[in-house]
Each structure stands twice: as C-alpha cells, then as structure tokens.
C-alpha cells in the first residue's frame, strides 16, 4: 500500500521543493558563468606578435603609434599593414589572407584587448612617454604571443595599479586616476 494521502502529499511536496532547488541552482550557476565570463575579443586576422617583434625586430611604437604621446596607445590600421603586406609575405595562409583583405579594401579593424573601467583615467603618455615603463609591465608577454589572445594576459585592476605606485613611490591620490 502506498501510505496515507497525507504521506503522499508530503512526498510530492519534498520532490517539488528539491526539484525547484535544483532548477534554481543550475540557473544560478549558468547566470554566474555568463556574468563573470569575459567575452573573448575577436580580431580581424590572426596577428602574430612574436613574428613582428622578435623575428622582424619591429618595436611596439611602429604599430601602436600613440603609445608615448596619447592617452591610448592606438591600434594599427590597414594603411600600416599595407606598408609590408601589399604583396604576400612569407608562406603562411594567414599572410596571404591579409594581402587579399587589404586588396579588397578591408579596414582591418583591430579590437582593444585591455580595457579599463570608464571611471579610470589612464594615459600611456604619462606611463610610457614620461615614466618610460616597459609595455610588459602591464601587458605581460603580449609581444611573444603567436595568435591574438582571447582575453587580457594580465588583469589590470586597482590593486595592480596601486601596488606598482607604492613600489615606485608614485602618487596614491584618488584624483590622479579618478575624475
């Protein structure tokens, strides 16, 4: 016999409660993953930093032209790439694709990988142009990557900035970065 109606009611209630809890748990995990996961940054071509920096000996400023004078370092445009890639370079399929894209008039819009919060006012000029910091201080081994990283190699948060400012004896004034 299956027990009294009251017992069965209790069993259904327990099953319903545990079922709901399971659904909420799964939904919570999915939402947490969606909220905390950083979106990957798609780039127009599979740019090989190592090829350009180590093998060809180009310095960062060659493509990031505003790095010593501007707030933003700047990203290369099609014109910069055309300087070398007007004719196919090397034997890789991607190099051939770059030449084809340029010939088709593709603007090759590279996307920013490292982004700061909008309430942070940072300038490359102050850090690279004046203080002469190395790029890898904040950007890690980006120059050695062989394909575009989906996510920043270094998490640049306030602790990251403050630690360096303390070590270097630089300003800790809120106004220096927040306005």
């Amino acid at each position, binding site marked *: 016999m299956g027990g009294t109606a009251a017992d069965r009611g209790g069993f259904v209630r327990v099953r319903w409660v545990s079922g709901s809890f399971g659904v909420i748990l799964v939904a919570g995990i999915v939402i947490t993953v969606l909220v905390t996961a950083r979106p990957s940054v798609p780039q127009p071509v599979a740019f090989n930093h190592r090829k350009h920096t180590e093998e060809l000996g180009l310095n960062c400023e060659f493509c990031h032209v505003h790095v010593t004078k501007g707030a933003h370092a700047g990203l290369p445009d099609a014109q910069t790439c055309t300087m070398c890639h007007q004719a196919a370079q090397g034997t890789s399929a991607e190099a051939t694709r770059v030449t084809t894209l340029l010939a088709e008039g593709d603007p090759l819009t590279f996307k920013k990988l490292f982004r700061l919060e909008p309430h942070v*006012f940072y300038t490359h000029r102050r850090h690279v142009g004046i203080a002469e910091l190395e790029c890898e201080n904040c950007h890690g081994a980006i120059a050695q990557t062989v394909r575009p990283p989906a996510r920043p190699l270094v998490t640049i948060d306030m602790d990251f900035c403050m630690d360096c400012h303390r070590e270097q004896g630089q300003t800790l*004034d809120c106004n220096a970065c*927040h306005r």
Partner: protein
Amino acid sequence: MARWGMVIDLDRCTGCAACEVACKSENNVAAVSVEQADMGRASSWMKVMAHVEGEFPDTTMHFYPRPCMHCDNPPCIRVCPVQATYIDDEGIVGQIYARCIGCRYCANACPYMVKYFNWYGPEWSEAERQHLNPDVSVRPAGVIEKCTFCHHRLQKAREDARAEGRELREEDYQPACVDVCPTNAIIFGDLDNPSHAVHTLKDDPRVLRLMEDLGTQPKVYYLRPRD
C-alpha cells in the same frame, strides 16, 4: 607642494555668466528640465549669485561667482561615510564618483551649497554627446558632483611640463571659468607661490571670504567692490 586657490574681483565681474557656461561645457554638467530645476535639482558647479544692496530706487547689484570653495577645513569630508570626498595634498577637494554612495550628507554639510546630487542619469542628444569632454567623467544617477578646480587640466599641464622637462608655470594650469572670463575677474594660482598673482591678492585689504566665521578656511577669496 602647491596650494591652489582663486581670487575673484567683484569690481570686475559683470555677471555675464560665461564662467557658468564654460564650466558646464568643460565638465560635462548635464542640463535638467525646467520642472526639475524649479525643484532645485539643477547642477551648476559655478554659479553667478546676484546680490542687491540698498532700497529701490537707490540700489546696487554685485555678482558673486560661486564655485566650490575648496576649504582647507572642509565640512563635507567630515561627514562622508565612504571617503568619496576628501582633500588632496594640494588643497583640492576631490569627489570620487565611483566611490560615492549618494547619501547626500556632504551636500547638506556644505554651507556654500556647492555640492549637487544627480537625481537622474544625464540625458544628452546625439549632437551633445559628440561634444562631451573625454577628460571628465559623465556622472551616473545617484552620486554627488562638484567643482574640482578643473584638476584634469592640472594633470594635463603637469604631463606637458614633465614631457618638456620644465617646472609647471602659472599659466599652464587655469580652470575653464578663469580662461573664459572676459574681464579677468577670476584669478587662479598657487596661494603659497610668491610668483603667482593670487599669492599677493589674497592679502589685499579688500579681501573677503564667504562665511569665514564658520572656520571652513575657503580658498576662494573675493575682492570687495570699491565704494
């Protein structure tokens, strides 16, 4: 270490309000509707206050441009529960929007009423959005904002001076209101630097400071109108 301050010559001020407009433009200060403004919800980091003396018809009017006084003893920073407002080493009273929780204690503590609360997020037309100053935050709803002596200009000026390997000059750092004043009624500089005009002017016999008796030690000095 500099101590930035301002001297305003009331004899020179014509009340044209160019300083108000320049300030709003420089600092992305949003406009509000007429109804909201009537409820006292308009922000004006620099406000030209009209002061009438005498009985009609023998009246005189003087204009008092009123920015944040950047007090050396600011009442606002004492009441802030999260240290979103503070005084920096150079005497500029800062407001850190990302830290502000919008309790409005500081706005109520300020005897000069120069701290403004954002009741709503700013609304900009597409054309206005194109002209926002990228060097200054656009404040969200729920935070207090105020005059900063255009300290973003100080940072820019200091960067320029360092890049050129020289000391910061008096003319390098001037807030927007000072830049546009057509009669040069507003003078700005380092109060402790004898080569800056404000250093001498702050000891002028005509000097007055608003509500000085409260002990706030404001760094905005007014030069009384001559009789």
